[in-house]
């Protein structure tokens, strides 16, 4: 059977202008036409020569760092923007969900928005009418159907939006990180729905940073890096390649996201290195150097989470034991020594949170710092990366024995 989707040598070029703040102005165009010097634009290839095939019924996970070209690929597949080169042959109806609730209008009622959104997503009016009750049921907002959307809570809006999308029935469904929002329970519901969809034999292309859910839903994976398709195959292998690929590539500082003006992190070093990949051989302790500026008086606390496969293994937070220090609005160098428990060999992630507990979380680094722990003593039989038999923490235990008698 022919593949349902053939992507052949797709490239996409964007022209970045260094002068304008976004869109063109006519005056600039005319002025530039009169000037002899070259316009200061730069070509940027969001995708370079990407080719792959998708068979009917496969569910594909597309992985890659921010800016790897995932969203551009989805936009080309959903015909929102044309490729610069290459072509795509599709043998089925494509519906894409690049955002939940596209076209939702705050002045319209829930009922009206269901019809508008459904029709935008490519459903026929009759189709929407026949599924209307199911949609309403799934969303759980039947009480507010005739209330304008602007009076909905954002959670309710999201529910309604996802409910409409969940009843799409195309041959190929394209989904871009739509589950990043909403409460945990609703996310679970959505993921369940998506698993149903993939089991019903439809083809799914799914972009997400949520690796466990990718693992649950997808069978195959594609890894994009800087516009190039670097790996494809079994989802498990692709995810492993991705997590491995991310190590040692950048500074810890680059992965820290600030919010608010509470304070600013100037540098972070772990065991003397500012790189995001930390290798621990035998040693069980990590030493953190934090160069930080506070903009106001702060009861600062550093929190560190150690995670394995998105499961929290252990954490460091001094304020839990009630020993908080208050800092003046100045620049400090803080040093922390953290003793880790007996971890099994393997790869872990460190999440670092810079907080004033219960007041502000003003900077964080999530999923970006890699801790590779090689516990030499148990290395011989414990380092089996494919399957984790023994969990993450090694328990200490003693054994005593007494001889009772002969058998």
């Amino acid at each position, binding site marked *: 059977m022919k593949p349902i989707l053939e992507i052949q040598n797709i490239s996409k070029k964007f022209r970045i202008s260094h002068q304008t703040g976004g869109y063109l102005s006519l005056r600039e165009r005319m002025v530039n036409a009169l000037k002899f010097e070259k316009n200061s634009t730069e070509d940027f290839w969001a995708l370079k020569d990407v080719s792959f095939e998708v068979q009917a019924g496969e569910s594909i996970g597309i992985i890659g760092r921010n800016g790897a070209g995932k969203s551009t690929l989805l936009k080309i597949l959903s015909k929102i923007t044309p490729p610069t080169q290459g072509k*795509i042959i599709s*043998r089925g109806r494509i519906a894409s969900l690049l955002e939940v609730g596209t076209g939702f209008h705050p002045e319209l009622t829930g009922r009206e928005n269901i019809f508008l959104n459904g029709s935008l*997503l490519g459903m026929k009016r009759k189709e929407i009418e026949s599924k209307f009750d199911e949609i309403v049921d799934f969303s759980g907002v039947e009480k507010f159907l005739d209330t304008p959307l602007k009076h909905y809570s954002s959670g309710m809006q999201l529910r309604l939006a996802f409910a409409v999308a969940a009843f799409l029935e195309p041959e190929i469904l394209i989904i871009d990180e739509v589950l990043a929002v909403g409460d945990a329970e609703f996310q679970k519901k959505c993921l369940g729905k998506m698993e149903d969809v993939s089991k019903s034999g439809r083809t799914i292309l799914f972009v997400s940073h949520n690796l466990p859910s990718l693992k649950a839903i997808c069978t195959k994976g594609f890894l994009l890096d800087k516009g190039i398709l670097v790996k494809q195959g079994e989802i498990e292998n692709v995810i492993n390649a991705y997590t491995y690929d991310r190590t040692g590539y950048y500074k810890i500082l680059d992965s820290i996201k600030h919010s608010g003006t509470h304070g600013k992190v100037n540098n972070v070093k772990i065991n003397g290195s500012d790189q995001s990949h930390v290798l621990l051989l035998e040693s069980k302790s990590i030493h953190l150097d934090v160069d930080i500026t506070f903009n106001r008086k702060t009861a600062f606390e550093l929190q560190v989470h150690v995670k394995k496969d998105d499961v929290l293994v252990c954490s460091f937070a001094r304020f839990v034991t009630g020993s908080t220090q208050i800092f003046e609005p100045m620049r400090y160098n803080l040093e922390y020594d953290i003793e880790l428990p007996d971890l099994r060999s393997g790869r872990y992630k460190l999440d670092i949170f810079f907080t004033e507990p219960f007041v502000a979380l003003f900077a964080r680094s999530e999923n970006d710092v890699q801790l590779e722990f090689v516990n030499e003593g148990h290395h011989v039989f414990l380092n089996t990366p494919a399957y984790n038999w023994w969990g993450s923490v090694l328990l200490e235990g003693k054994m005593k024995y007494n001889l009772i008698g002969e058998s």
Partner: protein
Amino acid sequence: MQKDIEYVIEPTEKKFLNFAVLWQYRELFYFFTWRDIKIKYKQTALGFLWAILQPLLMMTIFTLFFGRALNIPSQNLPYPVYVFSGLLIWNIFSTGLNNAANSMVNNASIIKKIYFPRLIVPVSSILVALFDFLMALILFIGILIFYQQPVSWTIFFYWPMAILFSIIATLGLGSWLAALNVKYRDFRYVIPFLIQVLFFLTPVIYPISLLKYPLLQYALATSPMYIAVEFFRLPLTGTLPNMDFVWISLASNVIFLLIGVIYFRRTEDFFADFA
């Protein structure tokens, strides 16, 4: 499951109109129009009445200033009838053009996330203007009865033609400006000015014969809306306009449609990148 669908996504090819795809998405015309009409009159106490009140107030003002004070001739029609007939058909153009030209920018959030033939957006925004027109038309018929205005049976030919030509004129300029507006936001400021200028350059509130120089009359006939205004009034005045003017206006009408739609089609693929 339909198994025989097969289509290709490629770098932009030159094309005029793909009616099959427009037909496939026909329900979106309805939904966009319906949405805009709903939103337009939501939270207004008078609701649809505004569609009637606006031309009515304009008619009153023009009647007082141009009819009474300046005594502009009106082809043997009562001046309010003359002005209202002109304003009515003109409003399809002015409201429609304003809607259409801003439609792509206003719907940018949708355009960036979902594919559908982009032409649906400006066309639907013009249909909204047509809805206003139909509301005001009811009032106009009332005015005709009030003034006991004799009407020729040719009304059943000329009125639909007038409406058709006004839509074509609006779509041509509207889709062109909509596409330009996505790329150059300067046009946002040009549009109200352009509409105002065209209003005075099109014989809406005065007859074209008011101008003393024939050359000037020819120049004004190039307005794509001239033919619509003349045709709309023809069954009332009973006087046939100069056929030269009619042909000139018709030509300009069609030329603007071609320029507008072709430019729109050639740029629409990149709207998502610019919007």
